[in-house]
């Protein structure tokens, strides 16, 4: 049984009060809170085992290295990657996406080539491609979506030409909550022999990910959105692609031999891990992923889909509320507007009642332009949220809505 009350006890911050109200944390799409096990892992690492990883002959360095490499294996298990050589630690999904955009661009993009992304990308999967396409004189093309927030798969099929070199698509929209049909998108890309990357920033924490079953070429996510600390993220890529890509940054640990004239590069995954990595963060990410495996990602998914359905229903009952994004399959986040109120108005008042939501453009300005709104209010859920919290927030939102009539 999924005992949310006892799970909440694992997260110390959830017991706190904000502006004299118990904290209701509905900003999980921005970042998640950390269980005690993760906090302890960080404290323990810096208190007892801290030492730089790799090549250290002494005991602490070997403990640190073992923890780091064990975390890599945990990530491998979590996303069912075929090999831990394919797991690259980065500082977050933004770096993972930039790494692929930059290195793939350098190796494979030429004048006139085309890259496909969706029109609902987070800026982190849009701007890197704008930069790279401009640099290599390539063209960026967009999969459109409709008012419900659903990608147009037929239009996607028609975007492919012999010039298409890469596809990069968000799995779950951080703004609309839309779960995109990535299996279909992957299969279509492969039918044109085009590699595809999935931005899993908003899916890794909400649903099971099996990169072998998906058969995508790259999958990227951030640790801090999956109950791990900030400053650690993952890029998984198929070995055949990672071998073909040039190094991203030069420095220590990514080399095999160095002379003043020439350097040969280390093998995977180290080729992409220049300098001292966030090894404590990686270790803590491993702990976070094991915490999730312990609860069972399927159980979390079931609980969160109940939260999503209930919150959607409660918001729909408020006449002044309009939900933005009504895809048949949604996860994690609900964007909405309150008639007569600016999202910032709503966020300010809810904050005074202890409710943390996010307001603004959610780093997806093109989505705001599409709907013609200055921003939205967004509620996003995590494994520890409850129906009672939704009841409380809905009650406050209903009351606030009448203030703006």
């Amino acid at each position, binding site marked *: 049984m999924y005992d949310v009350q006892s799970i909440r006890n694992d997260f110390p911050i959830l017991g706190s009060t904000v502006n004299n109200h118990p904290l209701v944390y509905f900003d999980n799409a921005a970042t998640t809170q950390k269980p005690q096990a993760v906090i302890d892992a960080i404290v323990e690492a810096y208190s007892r085992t801290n030492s730089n990883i790799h090549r250290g002959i002494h005991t602490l360095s070997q403990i640190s290295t073992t923890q780091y490499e064990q975390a890599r294996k945990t990530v491998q298990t979590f996303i069912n990657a075929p090999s831990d050589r394919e797991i690259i630690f980065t500082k977050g999904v933004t770096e993972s996406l930039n790494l692929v955009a930059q290195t793939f661009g350098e190796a494979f993009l030429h004048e006139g080539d085309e890259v496909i992304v969706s029109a609902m990308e987070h800026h982190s999967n849009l701007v890197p491609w704008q930069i790279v396409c401009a640099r290599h004189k390539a063209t960026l093309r967009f999969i459109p979506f409709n008012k419900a927030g659903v990608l147009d798969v037929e239009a996607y099929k028609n975007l492919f030409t012999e010039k298409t070199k890469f596809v990069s698509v968000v799995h779950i929209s951080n703004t609309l909550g839309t779960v995109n049909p990535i299996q279909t998108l992957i299969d279509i890309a492969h039918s044109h022999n085009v590699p595809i990357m999935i931005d899993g920033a908003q899916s890794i924490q909400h649903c099971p990910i099996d990169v072998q079953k998906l058969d995508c070429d790259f999958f990227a996510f951030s640790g801090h959105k999956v109950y791990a600390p900030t400053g650690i993220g993952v890029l998984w890529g198929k070995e055949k692609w990672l071998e073909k890509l040039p190094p991203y940054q030069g420095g220590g640990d990514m080399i095999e031999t160095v002379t003043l004239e020439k350097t040969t590069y280390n093998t995977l995954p180290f080729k992409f891990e220049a300098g001292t990595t966030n090894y404590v963060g990686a270790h803590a990410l491993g702990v976070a992923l094991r915490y999730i495996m312990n609860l069972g990602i399927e159980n979390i998914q079931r609980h969160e889909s109940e939260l999503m359905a209930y919150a959607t229903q409660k918001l729909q009952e408020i006449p002044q509320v309009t939900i933005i994004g009504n895809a048949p399959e949604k996860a994690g986040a609900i964007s909405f507007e309150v008639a007569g109120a*600016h999202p*910032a*108005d709503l966020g*300010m008042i809810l904050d005074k009642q202890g409710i943390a939501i996010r307001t*603004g453009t959610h780093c997806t300005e093109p989505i705001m332009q599409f709907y013609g709104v*200055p*921003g939205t209010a967004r509620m996003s859920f995590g494994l520890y949220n409850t129906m009672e919290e939704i009841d409380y927030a809905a009650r406050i939102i209903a009351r*606030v809505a009448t*203030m703006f009539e």
Partner: protein
Amino acid sequence: MSINEIQDEIIEEFSLFDDWMDKYQYLIDLSKNLPIIDEKYKQENYLIKGCQSQVWLFAEEKDGKVFFTADSDAIITKGIISLLIRVMSGQTPQDILDCDLHFIEAIGLKENLSPTRSNGLLSMIKQMKIYALAFKTQEK
């Protein structure tokens, strides 16, 4: 009334509310009193950009006193601006330059002035003072 007398008046009005909801309701009501900027000035030159909401501000001088008009796309921001204008509109440039807006903290809105709030209010106050300085310089 002097700037400080108006500030005291506002502090007294807000002392009636002990609930934040009531305070915000009052700010929403006050937003309706805002002297709205002329549509022709509602453009880039008069825009003070915040991260979440936008504010337009215009000022003119009549008989040695400064008069402000403004607008915002966020209602509560509008309410707070209407308080700022109530305090500073109709005052001399020198008084505006010299004033210390202690009422903001006294009525519990200080956090709205933190730079991280990015609602443009801090820049708005700065802009009001810049207008005052400009008018003062013209006088000489």
